[in-house]
């Protein structure tokens, strides 16, 4: 297993290199340069700036420079914010991570609860409510949902703040977390319900009931644990999507995370920030995929990686 994990980590190196290369050439293909302003700068200033940030050589030379710096762990400077990219990411990533993890916890708890209740009360009113919430939650984009959440809960009822993010302050956390986590919650609820329905029909559940185990115990101990396997398989991609997909929510709730920085960076061609974030996100996704594969082996002892 250790050898397997090591090998997978090693494979990530060429993968990240390839992603960095594609991103490098793509972002240099974005029309315009990083110092194009509404008010044009004097050519001498632009030339000086380009020399300062090493943008005056041929593209191939810039690429080699960039790779050399990357190997030394140096992501370069953000032209716009005039500070190292690692600092930009270091400042923003904690908020993005908090938001993503909270949304993930919400999606998992709400989704599994909804799915289990729906399955246990199949075709009852609770089931219909659950299925409706799961269906509607998957049909509305997260930014639209957020707009309506803010309209109703923040502006009309005044329960929550309209913008801002302070970890631990529910007035600022609830709406963005629900806004971001609703879609995956709906997805998890659907899978949980389907999986629970299948498990509840198994013979060993009937056996458990026949020997007099209480219904609550049957559901929680016998059924839910086995029904969680299909859910587990989607958790990795969901967590990755939540951490790397919070642009709009961050933008909308003015959360100082890195998702917002990326959108701004592409607009002004801030090469360093674009590259830094792409590599960070690609690493997060690759690591989570690895975590999923490892968790398969833990849940299902029949899988053995060598």
């Amino acid at each position: 297993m250790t050898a397997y994990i090591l090998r997978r980590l090693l494979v990530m190196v060429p993968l990240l290199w390839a992603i960095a290369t594609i991103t490098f050439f793509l972002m240099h293909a974005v029309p315009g340069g990083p110092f194009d302003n509404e008010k044009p700068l004097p050519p001498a200033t632009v030339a000086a700036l380009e020399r300062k940030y090493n943008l005056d050589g041929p593209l191939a030379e810039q690429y080699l420079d960039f790779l050399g710096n990357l190997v030394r762990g140096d992501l370069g400077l953000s032209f716009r914010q005039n500070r190292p990219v690692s600092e930009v990411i270091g400042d923003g990533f904690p908020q993005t991570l908090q938001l993503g993890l909270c949304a993930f916890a919400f999606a998992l708890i709400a989704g599994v609860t909804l799915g289990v209740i729906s399955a246990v009360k199949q075709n009852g009113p609770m089931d219909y409510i659950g299925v409706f919430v799961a269906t509607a939650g998957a049909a509305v984009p997260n930014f639209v949902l957020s707009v309506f959440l803010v309209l109703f809960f923040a502006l009309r009822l005044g329960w929550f703040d309209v913008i801002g993010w302070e970890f631990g302050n529910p007035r600022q956390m609830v709406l963005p977390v629900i806004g971001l986590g609703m879609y995956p919650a709906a997805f998890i609820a659907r899978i949980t319900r389907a999986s629970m329905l299948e498990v509840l029909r198994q013979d060993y559940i009937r056996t458990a009931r026949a020997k007099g185990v209480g219904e609550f115990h049957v559901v929680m101990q016998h059924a839910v644990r086995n029904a969680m396997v299909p859910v587990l398989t989607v958790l990795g991609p969901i967590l990755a999507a939540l951490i790397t997909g919070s642009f709009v929510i961050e933008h909308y709730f003015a959360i100082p995370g890195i998702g917002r920085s990326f959108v701004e960076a592409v607009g002004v061609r801030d090469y360093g920030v674009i590259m830094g974030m792409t590599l960070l996100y690609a690493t997060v996704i690759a690591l989570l995929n690895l975590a999923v594969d490892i968790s398969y082996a833990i849940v299902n002892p029949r899988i053995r990686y060598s």
Partner: protein
Amino acid sequence: MSISERAAILADGGFERPRKQLGLWGVAFQRLRRNKLAMAGGVILLLLIALATLAGVSEVVGRYRPSEQQYEEILTGPTGSHWLGTDNLGRDTWARTWEGTRISLKIGIGTQFVVLCVGILVGAGAALGSRWTDGVLMRFTDLMYAFPDLLAIILMRAVLSQRDWPIIGTGDPQLPGLPGPLLQVILAISFVGWVTLARLVRGQMLALKDMEYVMAARSMGASERRIVFVHMLPNTLGPVIVAVTFGIPTAIFAEAFLGFIGFGLPPPTASLGTLVAEGYAYVRVNEWMIAVPSAVIAALMLCFTFLGDGLRDALDPRTRR
């Protein structure tokens, strides 16, 4: 059929009437027709498409031109003449929503068309080609799969913009009904979207390659080309159709996302995404501006999801009762 029924038939005419033979598609269609939710999704979807198309060609349905401005009526709620109100420039929300629906559907379908072409080509190429081709194509697919997809879409959208490319450039539209910026959005969303389909097609093809009926066709002297096009490709279609049905609303979501963060289509073009973004700017003055396009996005999403679920059940032989 119970014994008594069979006895009744035998007594009646003396023989059983042979049941009409249905092919794969016939059976699938019958099964789909029995699925109420999928049928409802399909019917509502057709209705939305019909309304959106009619609103574009007929004054009676469309009522106003999407970019027609009326300065006396700005940011109104629903009135007798403007059924769903007007926006900040006095444009009719009803007319603009249908224009947005047309454009978003074009983006959804256009994206899936590109995804389909690339996905089938790469997937089939990997499955049928040499080991070397398979290795190269699949490593490339893995690479694109590892790309953070929203980042890639935003970046690609920026790369394609503001240039005078042939066909997809910013100049006059060269394909009727498909102006350059629209094609740029389609290409940007397709950039990472084809990966899933390529993997799906490859998996299907690899499974089919070893099937007995393919071997039978080969032993009877069918050419490789005939085997691929007549025997194998049609059998990969089921899962592909399902994937495309789910892909259309995903692409519509992606476009709405681009529109919302300001990387969508240039004004005054309305897509559902840009309409939501415009509505968001005036959300405290006129809630209709954001509510209407949001509702249409949700409706499209639900219709495609129900239809896709129905198609999957109908086309999957394992769920056959």
